[in-house]
């Protein structure tokens, strides 16, 4: 057998094993909408931990983090900070969100906005923005899958057919089994991912340099500025770092799928304990960084840093090992992509289509429409993945710039009595508009700061101003109204 045949056989075995676990987990429960989206609200600490780890450690961390360590250097360190700080933020905001979810039967982020602000238009807008910014994240996973199959097949499978294969598997998998499947496949994926990243992170520097210390010493001598900010860039300095870490850590749980995952927990306390231990998992990312830095010295000059990890693995290890790592990487893309698809399609059906266009739909019809949307959204992301050349990290940062605009509405909705629906709606529209404009017109970073962070500040300012301007009388009426609206839902 040729090396590429061996590697591909191993990869597909791992992917099919993962899918089999998913199908099995799905068939053991009758799939109502509640079961499909929030797993019947019965996930204990272990399963929740797996689900959350499953959606946090994605192709972005596997190929994207090493890619930025390779191509940007120092600025990539923001990844080691923001993941951990996002858990700190979650400690404070997820338990009260869970309480509200339990009390009022909330399943999605838009349900939360509907409940807190009593406007189906605000809730629908949240769904539109959520789905729109999930698409780059989905695109990221598909691009990652394409890269994996392309490199491990020694360029035998082109990237486009590779992504088409991946998308078919993925949609079938989500279609059948829902969120419970995803949590169980995470078991296999996390074990493989940790084993793969630790072993290559230790072995690669050892084989080429005799250890991590000598590897960094060589890098510091050859490229003295690569390891500190702004690294190989000219505009990603300390102010960019601070603004990006703030944006992404505040936004970590503003992703509709992460927000929604908190509803699967058994209790608010489960979420708090989870927030305490999760940062330890971030440490496994250090090994991914080692590999990216080593690749810069061993295989310099790659056109796209995202290829660096697999290129050096292919150069260093036998084909079966390339297959195991490729398989781990493939699951690392498929598990989060499944969660993203599941969330986006539920949002579309339940919080956008039904309330605005077809109020008479039953839950069963919503579930059916959501499943159709799985296919539609898969195809849209596949289209973007084929026609884009953005790096994995910049795709993720684009998504964060969008979804973090939910943060003011969520946090002030929990903790500030005076906040008004108009303020939150206005702030969100301007925030999303501002972030989109700055990024699409290539003004990111803007004045040394992350464009999404600037948009977030503008957003906050508008929420405060509009809410403070609302006359007290009108505000109380709005509050009473929001109570009665959501109680009759």
């Amino acid at each position, binding site marked *: 057998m040729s090396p590429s045949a061996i590697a591909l056989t191993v990869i597909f075995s791992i992917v099919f094993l993962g899918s089999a676990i998913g199908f099995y987990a799905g068939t053991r429960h009758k799939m109502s909408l509640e079961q499909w989206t929030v797993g019947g609200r019965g996930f204990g600490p272990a399963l929740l931990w797996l689900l959350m780890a499953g959606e946090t450690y994605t192709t972005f961390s596997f190929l994207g983090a090493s890619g930025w360590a390779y191509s940007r250097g120092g600025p990539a360190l923001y990844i080691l900070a923001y993941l951990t700080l996002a858990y700190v933020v979650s400690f404070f905001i997820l338990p009260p969100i869970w309480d509200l979810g339990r009390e009022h039967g909330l399943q999605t982020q838009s349900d939360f906005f509907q409940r807190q602000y009593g406007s189906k238009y605000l809730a629908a807008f949240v769904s539109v923005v959520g789905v729109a910014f999930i698409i780059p994240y989905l695109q990221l996973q598909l691009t990652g899958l394409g890269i994996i199959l392309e490199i491990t097949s020694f360029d035998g499978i082109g990237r486009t057919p590779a992504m088409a294969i991946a998308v078919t598997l993925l949609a079938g998998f989500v279609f059948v089994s829902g969120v419970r499947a995803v949590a169980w496949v995470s078991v296999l994926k996390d074990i493989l991912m940790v084993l793969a990243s630790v072993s290559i992170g230790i072995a690669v520097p050892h084989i080429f340099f005799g*250890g991590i210390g000598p590897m960094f010493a060589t890098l510091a001598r050859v490229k003295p500025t690569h390891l500190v*900010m702004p690294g190989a860039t000219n505009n990603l300095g300390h102010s960019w770092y601070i603004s990006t870490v703030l944006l992404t850590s505040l936004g970590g749980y503003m992703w509709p799928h992460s927000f929604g995952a908190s509803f699967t927990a058994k209790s608010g306390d489960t979420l708090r304990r989870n927030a305490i231990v999760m*940062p330890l998992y971030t440490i496994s990312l250090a090994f991914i960084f080692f590999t990216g830095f080593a690749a810069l010295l061993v295989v310099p000059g790659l056109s796209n840093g995202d290829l660096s990890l697999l290129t050096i693995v292919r150069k260093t290890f036998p084909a079966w090992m390339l297959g195991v790592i490729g398989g781990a990487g493939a699951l690392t893309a498929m598990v989060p992509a499944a969660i993203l698809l599941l969330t986006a399609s539920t949002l579309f059906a339940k919080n956008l289509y039904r309330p605005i266009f077809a109020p008479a739909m039953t839950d069963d019809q919503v579930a059916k429409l959501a499943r159709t949307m799985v296919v539609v959204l898969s195809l849209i992301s596949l289209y973007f993945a084929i026609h884009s050349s953005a790096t994995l990290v910049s795709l993720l940062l684009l998504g964060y710039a969008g979804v973090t605009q939910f943060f003011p509405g969520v946090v002030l909705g929990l903790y500030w009595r005076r906040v008004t629906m108009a303020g939150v709606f206005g702030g969100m529209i301007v925030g999303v508009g501002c972030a989109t404009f700055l990024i699409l017109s290539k003004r990111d970073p803007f004045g040394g700061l992350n464009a999404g962070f600037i948009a977030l500040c503008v957003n906050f300012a508008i929420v405060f101003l509009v809410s403070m301007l609302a006359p007290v009388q009108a505000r109380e009426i709005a509050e009473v109204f929001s109570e009665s609206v959501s109680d009759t839902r």
Partner: protein
Amino acid sequence: MQRPTEPVRSSDVKRPSYGAILLGLIPFAGMCFSVSAWDRVYPMILGMPFNFFWLLLWNVLTPLCMWAAYRVEALRSSEAPQRRQNENSSR
């Protein structure tokens, strides 16, 4: 103590204590705001550049901070059930 005429909003959730929030800000100070103080290569520790080592260290220290915040919150809620009962009956 609550006026019954005041509209009860679903935003009346339990706020975290100042102690817990302060503990939560420590990791932000360590990993985010202080970047210009630790973003350098030397001294290398455990073979890693200083900035890299510093962030990994804080990935270990953060769970300690959050565990302390958890204790603070748990202590508070074990003292507070009486008060919460009163609040509920006024709804």
